[in-house]
């Protein structure tokens, strides 16, 4: 009986090992099925260029997760200021020096005002053009940033269709152009930043009024900036010139929004064209409060800043 028992035990052990074996080996068929499902999704999304069949799914997920993202961002916000409490006297002295330097620079610019009058007039013209558009700003905060692993430079803001925001609206902050709205849910909107490699903005050089295209470089560092290519190959952009959007009232980018200053100019002999590096005015690694340009008089769930600066 004992021998039988031992045999039984071995038998059990073997079946046990068998089970382990099958458990350790994940099912290949399921892997293939799921991989094919992923590839089907990719194909669907790529082929339906204009109106992707996955757009409704994105919207549903956005409606569900948007409020959660806004909530976590609001909970985290008080803690993001903590590093500022631990600034040393040395830091503050450095800051004072930097501010004095920029103050001196600004004073120099004021003294050169007469020299720059022509340029200023053009800026003024552009500014009034923006005011004439009668656009208003809906304030919003950035609640989520796309990760670098995902390779796209997009953020979520906590204002959506209920705040009067729709796709292709221009997003700015107090420094300059941030990007444009890609899609909205009821309470959130996804914004494509101008530094995204897929983003192209129509730009105009402030002093010469030449037009060109500003493309993102795919980096958060402010120095690596944006690329500007002028339509007219013959014209050479000059350094320290300001680039603003030329856009239209119907297109995604409103005209006259400052983008950045030209820091480097390269000329390519082979392509016979000029390429300039534009340093954006906006610091994209520290985005917080932004404004979405909406038509004046838009119904919104929050206070709207009108073109003349009044709150409504």
């Amino acid at each position, binding site marked *: 009986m004992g021998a039988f028992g031992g045999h039984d035990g071995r038998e059990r052990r073997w079946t046990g090992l068998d089970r382990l074996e099958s458990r*350790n080996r994940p099912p290949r068929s399921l892997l293939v099925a799921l991989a094919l499902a992923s590839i089907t999704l990719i194909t669907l999304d790529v082929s339906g260029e204009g109106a992707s069949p996955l757009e409704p799914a994105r919207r549903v*997920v956005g409606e569900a997760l948007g409020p959660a993202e806004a909530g976590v961002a609001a909970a985290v916000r008080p803690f993001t200021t903590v590093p500022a409490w631990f600034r040393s006297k040395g830091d503050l002295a450095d800051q004072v020096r930097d501010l004095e330097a920029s103050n001196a620079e600004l004073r120099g610019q004021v003294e050169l005002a007469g020299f720059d009058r022509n340029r200023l007039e053009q800026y003024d013209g552009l500014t009034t053009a923006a005011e004439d558009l009668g656009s208003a700003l809906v304030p919003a905060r950035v609640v989520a940033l796309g990760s670098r692993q995902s390779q796209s430079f997009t953020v*979520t803001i906590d204002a959506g269709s209920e705040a009067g925001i729709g796709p292709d609206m221009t997003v700015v902050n107090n420094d300059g152009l941030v990007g444009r709205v*890609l899609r909205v849910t009821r309470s959130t909107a996804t914004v494509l930043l101008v530094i995204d490699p897929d983003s192209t903005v129509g730009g105009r050089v402030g002093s010469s009024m030449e037009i060109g295209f500003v493309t993102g470089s795919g980096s958060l560092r402010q120095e690596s900036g944006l690329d500007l290519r002028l339509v007219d190959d013959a014209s050479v952009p000059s350094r320290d010139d300001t680039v603003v959007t030329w856009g239209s009232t119907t297109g995604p980018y409103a005209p006259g929004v400052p983008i950045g200053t030209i820091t480097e100019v390269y000329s390519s002999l082979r392509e016979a064209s000029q390429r300039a590096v534009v340093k954006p005015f906006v610091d994209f690694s520290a985005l917080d409060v932004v404004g979405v340009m909406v038509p004046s008089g838009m119904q919104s769930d929050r206070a709207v800043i009108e073109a003349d600066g009044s709150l409504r």
Partner: protein
Amino acid sequence: MTGLRWVIATAAVVVALVVQVSLFPHVAWHGVVPNLCLLVVVAAALTVEAPFALLLGFAAGLTLDLAPPADHVAGRWALALTIAAFLAARVRQDQKPSALAVVGTVAASSFVATSLFALSGVLLQDPAMSVAGLLQVVLVAVVWDVLLTPFVLPPLMKLFTRLSPQWATT
């Protein structure tokens, strides 16, 4: 039990995603953040049976593809995380994996998943990026994921083990 496990796993993925996009950008290195969704998937692959882990990998990837700040072609993270879950499930032995094995699995899965995502981007020309830049992003992502492993993996693995008692005995 399976129903409850799905609910808990989905909740873990949602929490991971929201923390990943809303909290970690404040401490990100050049925009690279730890991929918490991947850590949830690896924890499941190391503890519960493989089909569940594969399906969870697909679901977590799809959520990453569709949740608000994402604008890439949908299905890319789903593919990457499914394959990462498959590899992590293969690594598992019949007993509880050692700490070193867990860290190694996380590093390998993170490398494979981020690289697969980047490669699919190169194939689809979703955003045109340089290979050197991609490699840097992949390596930093691996470091981030390994750094967070001691804090995220043990509680998640304990949770998944408790939810599937048939594996807890071995």
